[in-house]
């Protein structure tokens, strides 16, 4: 399957990665090469095979639904590019 420039643009936006207009044709070509490689999977008879969910046949561990951590506001904000008054700060979202 070949990917066109328009699809490449759409995928880049879905992935929230800015791709300059002039880069799109080359990107579409790279996608096409990778997807061509992936399409070998169509040769396999997967009738009646369940998609694998987990490699080990084990039930995920569970714990009591209680608070085990908290009160670390300062530590959590320490790596933020912009933090103010105890919050992560971002550009205005609502007009």
């Amino acid at each position, binding site marked *: 399957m070949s990917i066109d420039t328009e699809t490449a643009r759409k995928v880049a936006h*879905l992935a*929230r*990665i800015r791709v300059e207009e002039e880069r799109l044709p080359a990107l579409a070509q790279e996608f096409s090469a990778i997807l061509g490689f992936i399409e070998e999977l169509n040769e*396999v008879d997967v009738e009646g095979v369940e*998609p694998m969910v987990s*490699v080990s046949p084990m039930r995920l*561990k569970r714990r009591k639904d209680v608070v085990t951590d908290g009160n670390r506001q300062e530590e959590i904000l320490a*790596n933020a590019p912009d933090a103010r008054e105890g919050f992560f700060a971002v*550009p205005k*979202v609502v007009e």
Partner: protein
Amino acid sequence: MMTDALNTLTIHEARDKLRAGEITAAELTEACLSAIEAAGALNAFVHLTPEIARAQAKAADQRLREGEDAPALTGIPLGIKDLFCTRGVPSQAASAILKGFKPGYESTVTQNLWDAGAVMLGKLNMDEFAMGSSNETSTYGHAVNPWRRAGDDTPLSPGGSSGGSAAAVAAGLCLGATGTDTGGSIRQPAAFTGITGLKPTYGRCSRWGIIAFASSLDQAGPMTRDVRDAAIMLGAMCGPDDKDSTCADLPVPDFEAALTGDIRGKKIGIPREYRLDGMPDEIEKLWRQGAEMLRDAGAEIVDISLPHTKYALPAYYVIAPAEASSNLARYDGVRYGHRARLEAGEGIVEMYEKTRAEGFGDEVQRRVMVGTYVLSAGFYDAYYNRARRVRALIKRDFEQVFAEGVEAILTPATPSAAFGIGEMADADPVKMYLNDVFTVTVNLAGLPGISLPAGLDAQGLPLGLQLIGRPWEEGDLLNIAQALESRAAFVARPEKWW
């Protein structure tokens, strides 16, 4: 002169000398720090932590003086792949998007190592977010393989993604290093640098605090100078962890005690599908010799078939990017790392898009977008669900041969020896992906796999063989690996040029 050689000891040699009081952890640590300082040309260590190392070495010497029950890793200096979060120390997965990030917590695996008395020398180079097979996608620039072709000073790739770990262990900068393996990222660089690399069973080591790439495939493991060291280091790294729900609640066996040297009667499979068209004769020959060595040790060699092998790489290149696109959604310029500068009038969507365009390298962007595509509406069944079905068939192939009594499988580790830096630059991305052709099945099936050096090619570069084991049977796998190691008697070391 004595102290100069300390950094080239194996972990078990150093352990015995430390316990006997012949050397101190402080001396051993200084020897490694000096070796690292002199090895800038390898670009293996990217963040050094000498203060932490010296403090830990001092504590280790105290512990060694006080009692005879100090754990095996007490005073052993290690390097840590940059993918592991280490408290207060830069941990950026070799990505510009995590520049400046200092975690407020410690990964379970590294905490286990420090609890066992190990010493942290610093953080090691790698491919960005562990996506690569050459260490060339790193924001720190590529690491360099300490090995060179005979009579040729072309810089070679140490492999990837754990390329810095492999280069550091091979060059004697540390006694062992942590790696992670999603499709071959421990075993391929180990093969390229003539060292031993073990990817444990999925769930053996906790993934907590390891920056996620593809969560159903990622697994941490040791990279060491021999099989005994891998057994010792794995024992200290793994164990149950409430912070990772996929980490197995199994007791940690004494892996070193499993090294009995006796593999008589063990059934070792040789999978015919791993014989590729165009595979170099040297690799084919090495593989045959490996089988002979195991036969010589008393094992029974049997031909086996793993019919879905050829679909492993395409399945991997759906599943791994899909999981990566989801895991890497968190790098958005809000909570940590890089945030793009915005122009007047630009809002939050522009912030996300510019931040991720500036912060992610080309290969990471490509995989995140491929993952986004295969998960997008209308394609989810055709790509993602089909790949997960094929994955189930790949796992079933292995289950069938194990059910027939096969205890381990012998294959080449890589389709070639180390290649030159930049040699793959013009190739399309798929060509680079072929590096993982022998290793990726193991991740898809969640099995343990070990790569160990078994010979040199005509240009004097190391070549590795891989042994694949049954789930949770790392002890048995290591024992078989050691039987092969002792017969291959690989003693070559890179000639020091750095």
